[in-house]
């Protein structure tokens, strides 16, 4: 059950790959995910490193028994939720319309 593409499909993939719209789609996607991935990985590693090597900073009490360590940990949850929402909104607005259009072109082209 290996998928084999037909000549019509091959031609459609080649044509779409060369379009300006596809280049825009790829550029928009990468220019979102690459910096954001570097950002959240650095933010997470900073948290792990602080937990290991910055005990004085982490044990600072902020309100009552709530210290920096707990707030830093909870902020990881907040940023994870926020990035997920941000990426989804970004995709719906900037990526999905282009992807839908190219996919429709592809379907039309191979059924012709």
């Amino acid at each position, binding site marked *: *059950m*290996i*998928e084999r*593409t037909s000549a019509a*499909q*091959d031609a*459609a*993939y*080649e044509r*779409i*790959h060369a379009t300006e719209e*596809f280049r825009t*789609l*790829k550029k928009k*996607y990468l220019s979102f*995910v690459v910096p*954001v*991935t570097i950002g*959240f*990985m650095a933010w*997470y*590693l900073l*948290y*792990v*490193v602080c*937990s*290991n*090597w910055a*005990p004085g900073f*982490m*044990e600072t*009490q902020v*309100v*009552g*028994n*709530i*210290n920096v*360590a*707990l707030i830093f*940990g*909870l902020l*990881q*949850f907040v940023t*994870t*939720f926020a*990035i*997920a*929402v941000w*990426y*989804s909104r970004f*995709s719906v607005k900037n990526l*999905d319309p*282009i*992807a839908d259009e*190219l*996919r429709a072109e*592809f*379907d039309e082209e*191979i059924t012709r």
Partner: protein
Amino acid sequence: MSTNVILAASEEGGHQTLTTVLFVGVVLLTVAITFWASRNTKTAADYYAGGRSFSGFQNGLAIGGDYMSAASFLGISGAIALSGYDGFLYSIGFLVAWLVALLLIAELLRNSGRFTMADQLAYRMRQRPVRTAASVSTVVVSIFYLLAQMVGAGALVSLLLGVEGDTLKNLTIVGVGVLMIFYVVVGGMKGTTWVQIVKAVLLMVGTLLISVLVLAKFNFNLSELLGTAASNSGHGQAFLEPGLKYGADFTSKLDFLSLGIALVLGTAGLPHILIRFYTVPTARQARVSVNWAIGLIGSFYLMTLILGFGAAALLSDDQYAKVAESGGNLASPLLAEAVGGGEGSTGGAILLALIAAVAFATILAVVAGLTLASASSVAHDLYANVIKKGEVSGREEVKVARIAAFVIGGVAIALAIPGQSLNVAFLVALAFAVAASANLPALIYNLFWKDFNTRGATWSIYGGLISAVGLVFFSPVVSGKVDPATGESLSLFGTGVDFSWFPLENPGIVSIPIGFLLGWLGTITAKEKADPRKYRELEVRSMTGAGAE
């Protein structure tokens, strides 16, 4: 009079009867669901991918059900109850990891693969070597994870039922094994998915209930809960700060960093998670399902924080000693009993039984997902594409997948029973390390690097796999770690055997770079270059869904 009878029954272990009844209820419910799901399983796409008919929300629940193991439910709350803040560190890695899956993997994989992880990896490669490598890695990761879950199940069920003895543990392992084989053989992806959805709902409702009851004891004042936990734990403020468990010396700190990296990069390379993305109709629904999963998993880990600190704050000294004796696993069940009214009360017995049943459902859903992932890979990758070179009907593939589920389930049972006498808890962390070192580099390179080729793919998979497993083999996890207080061995092998030379228990910090490095080295040294036309095709297909099933 009647109250006295109930109280007497509870003291005699009334919760055991109730727990057993609820266990049987969970089994009957999931068996019924599986039969119901099997009526609509006809084609290969039905069996492997649930007919791609689940909504993003349903799949989000199922991902949660697949991912949140008994180790995270009982283990993390237990680790927080015993080691305070350090127990919480795990959950953060487990959660942040989902951003890797969301941003880089889920949608692209949904568009460019069909049933297994290897479909994506072999898209533009020579089929046989790449599928073999991907299948080996899938089976290794899944079996490691499966063994840890099944050995844990034996201990857990006897703990929850309060019955000692090896017979019950062995029976539990066989019972769990037979059930998971049943779900996967009869229900395929549809049955497995519904079992996971039911479990996710039970788990969320159960933990929410206990969390609210715990917070109510402190008038919803988090600071007061933390303060009481800190003073009752005997550690004071140190209980609320990192370092109690991992902070001993430089090696243990480095070990924690290594674990943190493996957790955050491993999730997006776990085969049983990856195949879940194929069960939805479009890439957009795959994105929606990851968003739901992040919401569920995140809220769940926030609640384990309340459960863990709640157990430290509310349990009596006797109960707390029992938690310590169980390695933390009893923290949530005993906490449920305490907030329900305490030992001997009807409310306590009901809540304890409820949490025990939730833990049992959790085990079943996770082991079913793991068995399905490895059976699918054996049938679809090894049998259909490597042995039969693709010349095989969907019907025959499904038949082989069912046989494979039998064999893998049988092997897991046969290994788990002797495995009980060994310390196998490290296998979960090892599964994440292999997924991060072998699978993730290959997936990332295949999606984003034009020149990546067959040799690069096989080198990164085998290189990451062998280095992760090999380093753990020569680590204190396997030999040479002795408890300084008791003189007992803390390793897989007993005292007197010591061939360890790698100081860390978590290999990720070395093996993940090895996986990436070998993928690059294999690629640039290969004579057979990547086909640029196939990469253009993969790019268009993965980003737009053009031609995707």
